[in-house]
């Protein structure tokens, strides 16, 4: 059996919601009074699971509740979950930015956490000065940094600008330098929170490669939080799935991702949304419906995808059109469309209108997609924008396609067929 380097026992974290006001003083006094008499904090008994979508009764919520796990040396563990599942809270506790409300975590070896790249970077200071400062913030001694300095600079690829203030850097250079410092930490455990969301694709690849080396080559343990299932799959061998602050799955990474996609994403397939009436908006979407003839909310690659909109124009905003943002399960934008070709747009219709948006046939391959809607004017900016309202649907490979008879899913995200022409 390999060596356990992190062991979490009954980790819980409670947060107080809402405004910090007079209530805090009262609760503080009560807490203090209980504490004085040697009793348990009375507020630990209350609180509810953290479900952001429904408004709860209590001011206290449990962001994490009774989390237990063990992580072996050399494992790289992906922590997966929807927004608000408690991933960031767990990382914060592990990196000691905040402490758990109850429970203990035992660790072996030095922990370096990268909840952000470039923490403490000062724009007025040069790249060189910032390497030292950032390194020291991350817990390196000065001589360690000096020893690794050339390596860090080489990895970042900003040799030419090393004595220029970092405020002159492009954002890409900035991130590269910052990651380079963190990547050269000599720690046994590395905690990384989606820092790879920034930076260009090539550098992301380099970072993933470096992290891979760290966990596989050097036997270090990596904890990685990301929304990108692709990166988690690439980088991790274990996965922990969190849901409403509780561990719902803990095992190898493929099963974890499957569990996440099947149980947590699939249960909230949602084919219609309604927006509340906001008289202050000059134009607004009232509701969107993804039309489907089936009960199971599953589409096939052959089905036509049609969104039905109810739309209200109180007063016309110059150039405003309705937009569709269609993202895949990795949260990457696959397709975008605006209704500036519709008659509603051209005729500047006032009052209620109904629109249909038919996506091109065969546009999408199999997978899970999330769509959000907005009203936007290139002249006036955002008119309506509620990205929390999402239509979510899943597409299966059609049984009639050529590939499906061999049990192959059409690869890629876009399934529009090309014309193949035999010319000779």
């Amino acid at each position: 059996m390999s060596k356990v380097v992190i062991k979490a026992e009954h980790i819980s974290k409670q947060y107080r919601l809402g405004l910090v006001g007079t209530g805090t003083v009262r609760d503080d006094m009560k807490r203090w009074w209980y504490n004085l008499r040697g009793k348990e904090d009375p507020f630990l008994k209350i609180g509810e699971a953290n479900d952001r979508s429904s408004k709860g009764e209590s001011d206290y919520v449990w962001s994490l509740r009774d989390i237990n796990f063990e992580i072996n040396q050399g494992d790289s563990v992906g922590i997966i979950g929807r927004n608000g599942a408690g991933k960031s809270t767990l990382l914060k506790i592990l990196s000691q930015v905040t402490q758990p409300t109850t429970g203990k975590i035992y660790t072996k070896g030095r922990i370096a956490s990268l909840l952000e790249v470039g923490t403490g970077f000062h724009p007025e200071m040069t790249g060189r000065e910032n390497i030292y400062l950032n390194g020291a913030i991350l817990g390196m001694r000065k001589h360690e940094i000096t020893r690794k300095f050339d390596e860090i600079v080489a990895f970042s690829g900003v040799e030419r600008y090393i004595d220029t203030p970092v405020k002159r850097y492009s954002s890409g250079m900035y991130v590269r330098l910052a990651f380079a410092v963190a990547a050269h930490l000599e720690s046994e455990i590395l905690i990384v929170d989606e820092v790879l969301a920034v930076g260009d694709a090539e550098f992301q690849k380099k970072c993933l490669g470096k992290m891979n080396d760290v966990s596989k080559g050097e036997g270090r343990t990596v904890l990685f939080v990301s929304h990108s299932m692709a990166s988690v799959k690439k980088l991790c061998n274990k996965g922990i799935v969190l849901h409403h602050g509780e561990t719902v799955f803990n095992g190898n990474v493929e099963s974890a991702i499957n569990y996440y996609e099947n149980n947590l994403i699939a249960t909230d397939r949602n084919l219609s949304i309604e927006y509340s009436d906001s008289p202050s908006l000059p134009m607004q979407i009232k509701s969107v419906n993804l039309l489907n003839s089936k009960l199971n909310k599953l589409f096939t690659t052959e089905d036509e995808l049609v969104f039905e909109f109810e739309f209200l124009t109180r007063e016309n905003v110059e150039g405003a059109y309705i937009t569709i943002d269609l993202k895949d399960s990795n949260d990457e934008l696959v397709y975008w469309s605006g209704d500036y070709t519709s008659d509603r747009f051209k005729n500047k219709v006032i009052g209620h209108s109904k629109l249909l948006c038919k996506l091109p046939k065969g546009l999408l391959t199999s997978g899970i997609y999330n769509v959000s809607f907005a009203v936007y004017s290139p002249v006036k900016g955002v008119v309506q924008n509620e990205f929390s309202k999402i239509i979510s649907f899943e597409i299966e490979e059609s049984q009639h396609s050529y590939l499906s008879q061999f049990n192959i899913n059409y690869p890629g995200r876009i399934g529009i067929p090309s014309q193949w022409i035999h010319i000779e």
Partner: protein
Amino acid sequence: MSQKNTTVEHWDSVIESKHSLFDINLKELWHYRDLLVLFVRRDFVTVYKQTILGPLWFFIQPLLTTITFTIIFGNVAQLSTEGAPKIIFYMAGITLWNYFSTCLTTVSGVFNANASIFGKVYFPRLIMPLTIVISNLMKFAVQFLLFVGFVGYFTFQNEIQPNSWILLTPFIIILMALISMGIGLILSSMTTKYKDLNQLIGFGVQLFMYATPVIYPSSSVPQDYQWLVELNPLVGLFDYMRYAYLGIGDFDFSNLVYPSLFSIVILALGILVFNKTQKTFMDTV
């Protein structure tokens, strides 16, 4: 992090919610000493970058305040300076007071000012107040040089008589640093939760200046209020400045006993409170 052994295995550290009040990890603080040096360097290098007058601002501010005080308190209000030249009298007070008030207000806002760093990475939080006190010490040193220059001038003019007590200056400065840091630490823990205090501290410090013999000699306080003067731990320090450098007022070692004890107690208290707050402040800030 605390060093503990579980019954079965050896663990390097344990993250948990219950901490003893006296769980202050000095070893860890020592490990991060390079960070302290780098932070101080950062403060010093970056403050006046891209300003035209640069480090000259270190001089301009106390000089202008001294002139203002000389005009208002010296000439308009005609407060006593016990025979010392007005400029040097006010400069002595202001130089010392500036250091105290800047340290106190900055340290008390340390959590809010550094929330973005504290929220992302762990290092012993005590590094930050220490940085503030030391960075300001460098600034103070520059201003003190200016003061010493003026003392030299007035001595040469034979208007004041500095004495060998000036050798004790470093000790006085350390007391000042400890007291301001101690009070700042206690306040910092409260401002994270109750933001109203930030407002209070701003003008509270200003009012406190008038309660401290900065712009008047402590001997000029009426008999009825002398007990207030005796409660204020800073009085001895300001009396010292004037006695050692200007040769006015009364002073001997007994005046330093109370400030010394006060500084140790308040700093110890401050560190305890700060240490307790640092573990959870991210949830309230």
